[in-house]
């Protein structure tokens, strides 16, 4: 081993990253080379000085909320796996039934293959028993569509489970807000996965539109695409409220984060605005309590019942004036 080779390996030796044979070689070189011996000694003295300072013990507060968020995520992932497995079984059963009906099914499959799908006319041509089978096949197709939709929703939820940064002076409250935000971000996804209400078909409701705005804003925050455009601190009850307006690259305010410290436990409120500057979602403590609003400002979704009357009438509807119009609840 040359001097240069041995010298390069001194830090590996210091951190125990060398195999025994290589370590022995480097040690032998250190014994014979004064320059390496001095450098080895300096490394040792430096690390010794560094290690005289005890390591920080990380705080445990916030862990419960984190584990609760993980529990919810784990349950979602388990459900998702179960859905996929169940869908596979159902599709396999449907395919087996289709094969069992014999010649007619062959004709059916041939027509389906030719057309790339099962035409409605083909169903009406069939005998009742065959119609039921064909209907099953169509149901399978529908469920596959919902499976894809669920997968999209899961991706959306995952993407938006990224922490919502609530710029606030209250670290603990902001910390809770981030966890709650991550948990709340999954809630609209669960709603998307639920069957649509009878008679409404697949039409998007105001709640899902609000959820889309929330997803978009959360995505912008996670992607660091929002910047603080304005900030203000004002009296609020016996304390203060710190408000920050976060704007996108076009200068449109998409998020107003409010931290209230008035002697009670610190509260944070996020006001999420659509691109037109209208309030679409208000989240208290990042979403533990949340209300979605439609374009007219009517409440369309309440994730967790709020014990006290929700002050939506006091929440500034327009992003442009949010900082000036905010009234302490």
């Amino acid at each position, binding site marked *: 081993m040359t001097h240069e080779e041995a010298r*390069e390996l*001194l*830090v*590996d*030796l*210091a*951190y*125990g990253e060398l195999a025994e044979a290589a370590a022995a070689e480097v040690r032998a070189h250190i014994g014979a080379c004064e320059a390496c011996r001095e450098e*080895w000694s*300096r*490394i*040792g*003295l*430096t*690390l*010794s*000085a*560094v*290690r*005289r*300072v*005890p*390591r*920080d*013990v*990380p*705080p445990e507060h*916030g*862990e419960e909320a*984190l*584990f609760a*968020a*993980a*529990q919810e*995520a*784990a*349950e*979602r*992932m*388990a*459900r*998702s*796996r179960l859905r996929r497995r169940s869908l596979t079984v159902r599709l396999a059963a449907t395919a087996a039934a289709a094969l069992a009906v014999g010649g007619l099914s062959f004709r059916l499959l041939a027509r389906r293959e030719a057309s790339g799908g099962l035409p409605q006319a083909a169903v009406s041509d069939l005998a009742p028993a065959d119609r039921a089978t064909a209907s099953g096949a169509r149901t399978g197709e529908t469920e596959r569509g919902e499976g894809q939709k669920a997968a999209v929703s*899961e*991706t959306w939820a*995952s*993407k*938006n*489970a*990224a*922490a919502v940064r609530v710029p606030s002076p209250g*670290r603990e409250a*902001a*910390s809770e807000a*981030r*966890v709650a935000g*991550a948990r709340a971000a999954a809630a609209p996804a669960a709603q998307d996965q639920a069957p649509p209400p009878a008679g409404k078909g697949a039409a998007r409701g105001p709640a899902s539109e609000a959820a889309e705005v929330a997803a978009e804003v959360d995505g912008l925050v996670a992607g*660091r695409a929002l*910047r*603080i455009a304005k900030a203000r601190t004002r009296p609020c009850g016996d304390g203060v409220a710190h408000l920050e307006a976060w704007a996108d690259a076009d200068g449109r305010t998409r998020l107003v984060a409010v931290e209230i410290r008035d002697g009670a436990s610190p509260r944070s409120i996020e006001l999420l605005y659509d691109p037109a500057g209208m309030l679409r979602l208000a989240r208290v403590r990042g979403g533990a309590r949340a209300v979605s609003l439609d374009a007219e400002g009517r409440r369309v979704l309440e994730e967790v019942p709020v014990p006290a009357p929700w002050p939506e009438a006091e929440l500034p509807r327009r992003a442009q004036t949010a900082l000036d119009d905010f009234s302490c609840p």
Partner: protein
Amino acid sequence: MQRFRRGDASAFEVLVRRHRGAVHGFLARCLGDRGRAEDLAQEVWLRVIAAAPRWEAKARFRTWLFSVARNLAVDDSRRRAFRGTPVPLEAAGAPGEAGPAAEDPPPDAAAEGSLLRPRLQAAIASLPPEQREVFLLREYADVPFAEIASITGSPEPTVKSRMRYALEQLRRRLEEMGLAPHPAGRPR
């Protein structure tokens, strides 16, 4: 991580308990602000939760975890620079700050640690960023050099050179601050 993906929440708790100290230690030394480090550490774990459904074992979990932590720390520093927020020096002390002389007899090890901590933090803060991250990942997060190379996107020999320079500069800074290296000290 694979167990967590399959819906076993206790696997996530195992991951947190295994790596929590290292993640927090890395961020705290990197940012020089324990409060901010707590926030970012929590964000790291939330990202783990968010990424779980799409997780593929392409790299070691630890490598990926510290890549996330490092990127968050870099982003945070940039953002604070952009917003003009001064970097807190709550634990760092100013580089030239006079502290108790190293030869003062420390009443006990804990007290000695609390006296040395600000000066060590100041010495670490004085390192160039690319040397500092290598030192912190190796010393406080116990990440091997090969993984640090993956995390930082630098060749492994470069990583080791940075470590050597970092140790040399730390030694000088600590000497300037009157921190006499402990004579019993030898690498592990």
